[in-house]
């Protein structure tokens, strides 16, 4: 991809990231951190791509380890965030 296009995506995403969480109350700091944590679990996509083109056993072994870790991060992250937020339900008007 064009380097300039990548820089543009990066800069715009930085501002979107700043903007979307700018008004969060301290009550939600923990679930928000946990949710953001789950989102970076999409490194799983990267781990699958490198596993696909691994040509040696060393590469494949490391890629498989990366898939295991990334899956734990992503799936575990979303599940634990949901459990936290479930506690809040019923107390809100």
């Amino acid at each position, binding site marked *: 991809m064009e380097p300039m296009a990548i820089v543009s*995506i990066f800069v715009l995403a930085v501002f979107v*990231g700043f903007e*979307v969480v700018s008004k*969060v109350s301290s009550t939600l700091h923990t*679930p928000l951190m*946990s949710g953001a*944590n789950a989102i970076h679990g999409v490194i799983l996509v990267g781990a699958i791509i490198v596993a696909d*083109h691994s040509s040696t056993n060393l590469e494949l072994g490391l890629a498989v380890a990366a898939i295991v870790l*990334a899956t734990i991060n992503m799936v575990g992250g979303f599940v634990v965030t949901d459990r936290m937020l479930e506690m809040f339900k019923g107390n809100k008007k």
Partner: protein
Amino acid sequence: MSRTLYDLVGLAAGVAFILALKGLSHPKTARRGNLIGAFGATLATLVVFFYANPGSSLPLNNLGWILGAMVVGLLVGVPAARKVQMTQMPQLVALFNGVGGGAAALVAIVEYLHLGAEATTAEVVFTVFTVIVGCVSFSGSVITFMKLQELMTTRPVIFPAGRFIIAATLVSVIGVGGWVVSALGTTPLLVLAGLSLLFGVLFVLPVGGADVPIVISLLNAFTGLTVAASGYVLDSVLLIIAGTLVGASGTILTRKMAEAMGRSLFGTLFGAFTAKPQDASGSAEERPVRSGSPDDVAILLNYARRVVIVPGFGLAVAQAQHTVRELADMLIAKGIDVAYGIHPVAGRMPGHMNVLLAEANVPYEQLAEMDEVNPTFGQTDVAIVIGANDVVNPAAQTSPGCPIYGMPILEVNQAANIIFLKRSMRPGFAGIENELLYDPKTMLLFGDAKASLTKVVSALKAL
């Protein structure tokens, strides 16, 4: 699947992540936001299986290995997330973050081995960045996990000449990073990974217990940036968007947390370089304290007009949320004004106590935030501090130089009477002595929070 369609689905997942973060910032939409995020991540993962990368074909090579590894990840991650006690949730989040950082570092190493001499300088630079930051995030998160799980001391670990060792490690990490870029070899890359892991450990060791959540949040933002850098190397717009979003929002969140705790972000981050060994004197005290019986506490409460309950981590550990609600309900039935004073970092992380009390069905309107409740302590007859310590420690206001100085506290020392429910005289998570325990208007009720509260409830019934 064409590249255009593949990128469009990636874009859709990126939008889902933006909506997820947006949703997670508001109480009403938080749960839906998380589900939207999970949907985006699932979509992004599924679509990889239907796109053949240039020079590759479908189905993906090593498909069995890929699916098998995902199943293993599911079998570890889901039960861990389902079964964890809410009190131990912060360390689980730390651990999840660490394995994410580890995964990003591994992906970068594999891609580096794969590209070999064909890698462009830009790709190598991004790989070096990902390996360094991913490894720091991994080993740093493991140390935060051990601190929160109390597998090691929660006090800052400071050793002689520590800051020189840390600075030297950082310099060698950067030096070896330059070596990898210029020499392109497997050995330099592995040395780099090892040194980065070491730096992560050294970076987090001097952080005191109270600052651990800030560090977790920061490492979370770091991991986001490594994902973005991997996106560049792997030519994936989705990874760039998702990683940057987490990096940026995580940075803001870290700053907000530091503000809520009254900590200087700079001081926390560079504590490793500035920390000096502290003298351990002043802790072995044999000063008199006033301890009372459950009956004394019940009588005090019975004649109060306003009671503020200050819950801390000890309450959660003793699983006393339900008993404390029973006590509050009884006091309310007697016409006593009852509020819960919630410190922003009560528990182990900002918002953690709200989660724990919500679990016990405490009505949301009885929870008062610190700014709301502090001006009312002057009119409060009894403040009951249950398993909290650092968040009510007046040293945060009065003794410059103590590790929590400057942290906003719940001013229970303004109340007419203070009751501390404590297991022992052991200091709190930050490891600092609390003067308030020796205050003449303080009464201590020793024992397990739940057992003590149950006794107070029955004593109150007998009155």
